[in-house]
């Protein structure tokens, strides 16, 4: 089971994982990315490439499902303006046993950072700036190749 979604509205983790929990596996690993509260950023605005984004996320989930024999994988990514502490992204993998689920979950978020067409703009007071890509993210994605 592969499910991907790009949406503005908040999402529930329980609701997002429910379809994976119905697959009969013993292990679900998930990762939630949040707007951090550790600097002066007030709003993070996510832009994406409609059409390409969904295809890129689906391919990513399918690659993970094939590589680790998953029962299912889910990716939800929000777009639009988000405030501190809000959820940006959820990736989750369901497998019979935990090692596959844990590894696939790490793979999904590492690869999503470099392979899905999203862009973040930060707003601090009156000032807005586009977030720069991080070399560390390229390195993290590279280790799965």
């Amino acid at each position, binding site marked *: 089971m592969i499910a991907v979604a790009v949406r503005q509205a908040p999402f529930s983790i329980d609701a997002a994982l429910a379809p994976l929990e119905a697959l009969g596996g013993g292990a679900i690993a998930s990762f939630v*990315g949040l707007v951090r509260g550790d600097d002066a950023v007030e709003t993070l605005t*996510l*832009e*994406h*490439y409609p*059409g*390409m984004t969904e*295809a890129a996320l689906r391919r990513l989930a399918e690659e993970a499902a094939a590589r680790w024999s998953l029962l299912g994988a889910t990716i939800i*990514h929000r777009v639009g303006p988000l405030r501190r502490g809000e959820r*940006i*992204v959820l990736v989750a993998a369901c497998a019979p046993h935990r090692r596959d689920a844990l590894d696939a979950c790490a793979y999904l*978020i590492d690869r*999503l*950072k*470099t*392979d*899905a*067409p*999203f*862009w*973040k*703009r930060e707003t601090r007071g009156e000032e807005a700036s*586009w*977030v*720069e*890509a*991080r070399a560390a*993210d390229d390195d993290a994605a590279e280790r799965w190749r």
Partner: protein
Amino acid sequence: MTLTILYFAWVRERIGASEEAVDLPQAVATPRALAAWLAERSPGHRAALSDLARIRVAIDQEFADLDASIAGAREVAFFPPVTGG
């Protein structure tokens, strides 16, 4: 050949448009050549597309190299390195 060009993030902001349709001269065969050709359109285009080290490309919604072929493509997008997740 009519091609849809898409811009995202600060590329879009500098150009002041998210999308345009262009009739392409046959000599423009790669995203690199396309960027140089588009840069002539306005100062905003030039500001957005002059430093290609900062630009990434998708051809028909697949990430592509600046020197890939755009022959037969319907859609080419220019944007900064992605920062999602």
